[in-house]
């Protein structure tokens, strides 16, 4: 319960209920108006009458097995790109975070520049660059673009994870006689990884969403198969039906992954009372990682330690 307002009494509760009902009706009415205006039957330029969007003749496709086979092919193509890109992004992220926290400035500074550069680039531009300069074909262009961009974001997240560890962790590692590199790998890195897991998963959701960008460079993924090829296969009167099916698939997959991310976040926060507040601070500083993570030139992690 929030403290912004009093616990409502009977009168206020009634008033709130009235506003709630009226507000709800206004919102629903607005939505209904929008839908019916957009979905109304209309006559096209050739004088042919088209049935409205909610007309059953537009929706019988949903029961067609061929549609789901096509959509399945699209999902498979999307996941194939997302899985490879995610694995590469994790590898790149780990590598960059290790380089970024190196003791020698000769390693650290170039790694920092690389991270900031790629975080500041549109993924689409990275994809186009790979496609045209290395002529890799659309699939690998998409994979490389996503992997490099998200690798840089994950690298930065892991770096702030390492930076937020209590200093004693590293010191005790060194005191035990481990080399600095061993300390980093066996003591600091596993903790940083676990602490940053919610951010990393959130970033992987972003990666999955961003596979749809590969549509623009011509890769045959869910959007392309469903919305460009679908209307030619099944007939253009199913255009809206296909759109809503694709929309529903994306929503289902992303909401599931987001729910998993939240679950993991709660579990890691619950298991490590100590680290949780710091993680929350770092998550807040990274901008929630939802909207494509980071920013160019924002080396904010250094200031967040305070």
């Amino acid at each position: 319960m929030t403290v912004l307002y009093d616990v409502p009494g009977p009168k206020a509760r009634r008033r709130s209920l009235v506003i709630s009902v009226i507000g709800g009706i206004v919102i629903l009415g607005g939505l209904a108006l929008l839908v019916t205006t957009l979905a109304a039957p209309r006559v096209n330029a050739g004088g042919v009458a088209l049935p409205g969007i909610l007309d059953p003749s537009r929706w019988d496709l949903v029961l067609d097995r061929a549609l789901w086979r096509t959509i399945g092919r699209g999902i498979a193509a999307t996941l194939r790109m997302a899985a490879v890109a995610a694995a590469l992004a994790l590898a790149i992220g780990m590598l960059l975070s290790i380089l970024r926290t190196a003791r020698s400035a000769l390693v650290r500074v170039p790694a920092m520049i690389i991270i900031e550069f790629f975080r500041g680039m549109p993924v689409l531009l990275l994809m186009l660059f790979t496609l045209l300069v290395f002529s890799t074909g659309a699939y690998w262009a998409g994979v490389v673009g996503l992997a490099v961009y998200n690798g840089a974001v994950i690298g930065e997240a892991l770096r702030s994870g390492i930076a937020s560890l209590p200093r004693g962790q590293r010191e005790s590692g060194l005191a035990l006689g481990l080399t600095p590199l061993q300390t980093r790998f066996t003591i600091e890195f596993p903790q940083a990884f676990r602490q940053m897991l919610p951010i990393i998963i959130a970033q992987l959701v972003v990666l999955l969403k961003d596979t749809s960008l590969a549509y623009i460079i011509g890769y045959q993924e869910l959007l392309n198969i469903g919305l460009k090829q679908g209307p030619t296969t099944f007939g253009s009167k199913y255009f809206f039906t296909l759109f809503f099916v694709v929309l529903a698939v994306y929503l289902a997959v992303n909401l599931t992954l987001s729910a998993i991310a939240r679950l993991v976040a709660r579990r890691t926060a619950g298991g490590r009372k100590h680290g949780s507040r710091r993680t929350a601070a770092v998550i807040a500083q990274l901008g929630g990682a939802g909207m494509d993570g980071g920013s160019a030139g924002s080396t904010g992690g250094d200031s967040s330690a305070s």
Partner: protein
Amino acid sequence: MQPIIDNLPIFIDGFLMTLRLLVISGAGALVIGTVIAAMRISPVGAFRVFATAYTELFRNIPLTLILFFCAFVLPNLQVRFDYVTFALIGLTAYTSPFVAEAIRSGVNGVPIGQAEAARAIGLNFGQTLGSVILPQAIRMVVPPLINVLIALTKNTSVAGGFAVIELFATSRRLINDNGNATVAILIAVAVFYLVITVPLGQFAVALEKKVAVLR
């Protein structure tokens, strides 16, 4: 280098279009996002439900799909705008929930004692929010909001895939004409993006430091 110098006016045109997308849809997203955030913390249940649904829905749809809807599905429903307007609508719709979340987390980030103290001296909901919570929340909200704007800058490139001639589309067009200068053109476009994102990022960092001192 030569093709870039020759085509500088085209680059500038693309850059201005990117800036236009950024400024207009950024402003639109700030307005809608603020309204959604206000609904999300309001005492009225229906508003809270609507704001939550809106946020969860638009955050989980790929931007490409939203722009596809605006550019290809809406004209099919006889909504007649030019492609730039469609792109502006799509970018605004996609960005607004991120703005709303940034504002909401700022409001939640104000220590609860502040709200309790305001309530204890008898301020009502509007007064508590307007003269105690929001002035503090805005300071905490600005850096994440700038991060949202930086992401929006990068996201405007997606509009280039839907018939809007901004930086990304410009680069594709120029590469078609100057195949031998592909790398140079792409790097030039990258620099144009960095011209927007790096100063914004530096501004966010500077502001964050200033705010950290104030608290």
